[in-house]
Every structure is written in structure tokens, then in C-alpha cells.
């Protein structure tokens, strides 16, 4: 058994969709499989999600776990700049927040990281050099 760990973005372990009601955003996080789900349980805590979204000043972050779906549901209150009816944000529904969560890095065993799906990172356009 190895204890080596690596750091990977959440999108390699799970998928996600955002919903909204008023100024409350809910972000599901659905593991690819049981092993990934165990990592999510340990790594993606309320505190870490609150920290990740701190710049949006959440009033409260609640995590609900759904073991039968190998998923969790995060409810973030007060993160939508007032919600769809009053926000000035371009994405007033906060639809893009799920992909922001999926960018968070989490620690995983190295052998798990080696077989997780990935997409090749898009290189920045070479306008500058």
C-alpha cells in the first residue's frame, strides 16, 4: 500500500451542476465512483468550500451527503449578489459556479490520480511573447 498523494482538480473526480433559488446557490458534486466519493467526503468539507467561495461572502455553507448517489449537495447562502432578480452579475443565476468548484485542488492517492480522467489543459494563446 502506498501513501503517496498527488493534488488534482475536483473535475477529475466528480461532476457538478448548479441550481439557484433567490440568493441561494446549490452546487451538486457527484463522484465518478465509490473511491472518488471517499475522497470527496474527506476533502471537500463545508469549511473548504466556504473558503473557496469566500470572495462571494457566503452567509452559510451546508453540505448534504447522498451516499446512494455517491454525491453531495452544497447549499451556499448569499453568494449570488442578491440573486437573479437583483444581481448585476452577468451570470445572475450563478450557473458557472459549479465549474469554479471543480477547479479546486484536492489531495488524492497517487495511484488514483494516475487513472482519473483528464482533459488536456488548453494553452494560453500566444499573443504575448
Amino acid at each position, binding site marked *: 500500500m502506498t501513501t503517496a498523494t498527488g493534488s488534482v482538480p475536483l*473535475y477529475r473526480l466528480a*461532476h*457538478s*451542476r448548479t*441550481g*439557484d*433559488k*433567490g440568493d*441561494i446557490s*446549490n452546487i*451538486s458534486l*457527484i463522484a465518478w465512483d465509490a473511491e472518488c466519493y471517499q475522497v470527496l467526503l474527506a476533502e471537500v468539507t463545508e469549511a473548504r468550500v466556504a473558503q473557496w467561495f469566500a*470572495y*462571494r*461572502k457566503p452567509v452559510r455553507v*451546508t453540505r*448534504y451527503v*447522498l*451516499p*446512494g*448517489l455517491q*454525491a453531495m*449537495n452544497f*447549499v451556499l447562502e448569499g453568494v449570488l*449578489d442578491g440573486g*437573479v*432578480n*437583483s*444581481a*448585476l*452579475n*452577468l*451570470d445572475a443565476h450563478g450557473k*458557472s459556479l459549479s465549474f*469554479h468548484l471543480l477547479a479546486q485542488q484536492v489531495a488524492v492517492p497517487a495511484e488514483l490520480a494516475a487513472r482519473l*480522467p483528464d*482533459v*488536456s489543459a488548453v494553452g494560453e*494563446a500566444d*499573443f*504575448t511573447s
Partner: protein
Amino acid sequence: MTAPHFPCLVGCATGFSGDRTDGAPPVVRTLAARGGGTLIFETLAERTLALAQLARNQDPEAGYEPLLEDLVGPVLGDCMKHGINIVSNFGAANPPAAARRIASIAARQGLPAPRIAVIHGDALDSPEQRALLRERLGAEFDRIDVISANAYLGAQEIAQALRAGAQVVVAGRVADPSLTVGPALAHYDWSDDDWPRLGRATMAGHLLECGTQVTGGYFAVPGLKEVPGLHETGFPIAQIDADGACVIGKAENTGGKVDARTVKEQLLYEVHDPARYLTPDVVADLSQAGVTELGGDRVAVHGITGHARPRELKVNVCYRGGWLAEAEISYAGLQAEARARLAGDIVARRIGSAMRLRIDLIGAMSILADDDGALLAGVPDRHGQDVRLRVAARHDDRATAERVLREVTALYCCGPAGGGGVRTSLRPRLATLSCTVPREIVAAGWTMQESR
């Protein structure tokens, strides 16, 4: 009553007002081949009803789903021929007018007059109802210009109308899953307090209510989560058994896909506490839910139950929310991002404290930013080469809001070098307040439209 076909099939052909209008024919063909069922259209978002009410204020025959004819016209004859009922909230702020329009579509197509039921009672217009809303919402209620106030009705009236033989049920504000629970209730004659079955049927409705969001729509990520034929994604069909449990599939010969992942994403969509998903019909509990892929774009959902329905009904009050001013200008090439930041700073200084501004740099930092601009200010200039400045503000006074548009337009001559492509818009805003009210003050009911 004619013998029901078993099990109960419900297909959904729109997930919101403005969705694709070509979803229904493949759903209807699939339902017809399987012996009939119900076709639902979900067309009401939070503010859609207020927009419809504004339309009705202009024209007493308007105020229902603007695309009604495009949705119903192509399938009405086939639905009537194959015993497929149509249930929808496309009545919006004027269900009776929507019913008349459907009757006229049938007449024009040479069809027999369909039996059309109209659900009423969701609009809380009476002095007594408004007084209660004021009590619930407090003094703020006196300060707002109310456009619409509607309670979320449940499945009972839909079920009653279907049991009475309605072929089309036209509703305004009903809870989205109730569009599915109603047909299931009518089909199986469950008792109104059979909470586990109502909970399961509610989650079937929840899976259907966003149309293609369960059949591969809103799911694809190239390289990670592929969806075949996304340009012609089929709409979903739920098969609901006598216990309320469902199998989600989709219309035959369409694109998209249904698998465990698409179903899980939709199951949790807009859910807060999974053990307490509130609707007028039941408190659904999906905390122990599981899904099983059956192959062939079919997924069984299990482990769902329900608890006694909430004692009060949710009400949405829509009111005039001032003006939204938005203006944009682009900068490209050398020091583009620096020039865009400078432009935003100029506008902010000139507006001063007249109103709160939101400043985004599209192409550098916009979607993920915050209203106060803290993230944008904290992110160093990344030397973006293709950046669009966006300035947005809201104000109750139209002339004040318009200042934002003028200041951005003035950047053409008075701003940094090379700004181009100014676009401005000024739109009235709709805002909402929510509360709950006792069921007793909501006079929900239905009437069968007189056929002519």
C-alpha cells in the same frame, strides 16, 4: 372511465419559456407507440408569470405562453387521436385565454373540440389575500409596485380535471413537479396523503421539469462528458409505476442520452436539503436515492420516499424593480487589459456615489468576480489582449440609470485609446418577494371550458 393503460407515462417537451419548440413531436410519437400517456410543457420561471401579467395588462387576451401555438399546434391532433393528454402551466397569467387559443387551434385544424380544463385560484388578487400578503411581507409590501402575486398550486386540481375527462389541462402557477404528479394521481387513484408515492412521483416530475436537462442537455463537457447528437437532444419520458417509482428515458430516434450521471445531476438540481424537498403536494425525501442504468437510455430511480405536505403554500410576489443599465466597450491588442481597467476607473469616478456600479472585464475577470470588485482589483493585470469592459447598474430612477450608458458611450472620445464596439441597454427589472400563506386562503379549483 376508460381503462387506463399501465404504467403511467409522462413526457415533457419544454423546460422553460423559450426552450426549443420542436421537442414535442418525437415525445408524442413515442407515447403513441406505447399506448398513450401525458405530455407536459413546463414554461414558467420565477419572473415569467410577471412578464405575462404585464402583457395581459396591455391586452386582455394576452398573458399566456407566447409560443403556445408553436408548442401545441403540431401535436394537438396526434395527442387527441392517441389518447395523450396535455398538461401545462402555459396558461401563465391568463389560463382562460390560453384555453380559448387551444380551442381555436383545434377548430382551425378541423379537430373535434377538445375537452379543456382551466385551473384557477393561483393569483392572489382579492383584498383579503393582499391584506394577508402585507401581513406576511411586512411594511416593505407597501413600498413596492406589485405586478403579480401567485401561490404555487399542487397536483390535486390537475388530477381532478383529468379524472373528469379533460384532454388538455391549462394551469397558471402550479409547482413544476405537480404537472407530473397530477397525471399519476389521476392514473392510479392514490390517496391524497400517500406520502411515499407522492414523494416518488414528485421526484419523477422533478426529473422531467427541466426538459432535456435529464437527457444530456446542460451536461456535456468535451473530453470528459460526451453527449451524442446534442443538437437534436430528445426530451424525457418517465414511466411511473403503481408505487410511484420511475424509469427515466427519452423520445425514440433523438439525440442526447440518459445515464446515471445525467439523472443524478438533474435529481439534485435546485435541491437544498435532500431529505426535505418541499412542494404543495408532499415533502419529498431523496436523501437515500439511488439510480440503476437499465441500458438503452433508461435509468431506474429508487430509494425515494415522502412525508406529510407543508401546511402552507409558497407565494411569489413580483414587483417593479427599477432599471438595469448595462453598457460595454472593447479593447484589443497592446495593453488592452490596462486600457479597459483605466476605462472602468474613469466611469466609476464620474458616477461617484450616484449609484452602485458593477464593473467586469470580460476576457479577464467577469463571471467569477464579485459586486464590490475586490477580486478584480486583487488580480494583477494579466495583459489580456481581447477585453470587453462591462458596466452595470440598477436604479429606480430611469434618468439616473441612463447616466451609465452615457458615460460608457463617452469613452469613445474621452476614454483610453482604441475603445470600440459600444453597446448599451436599459431594461425594466422585475424583482420578487416570497412568503407562505395558509392553504385556506387560496381558492384553487378548475372548470371545464364550454366547448363550442
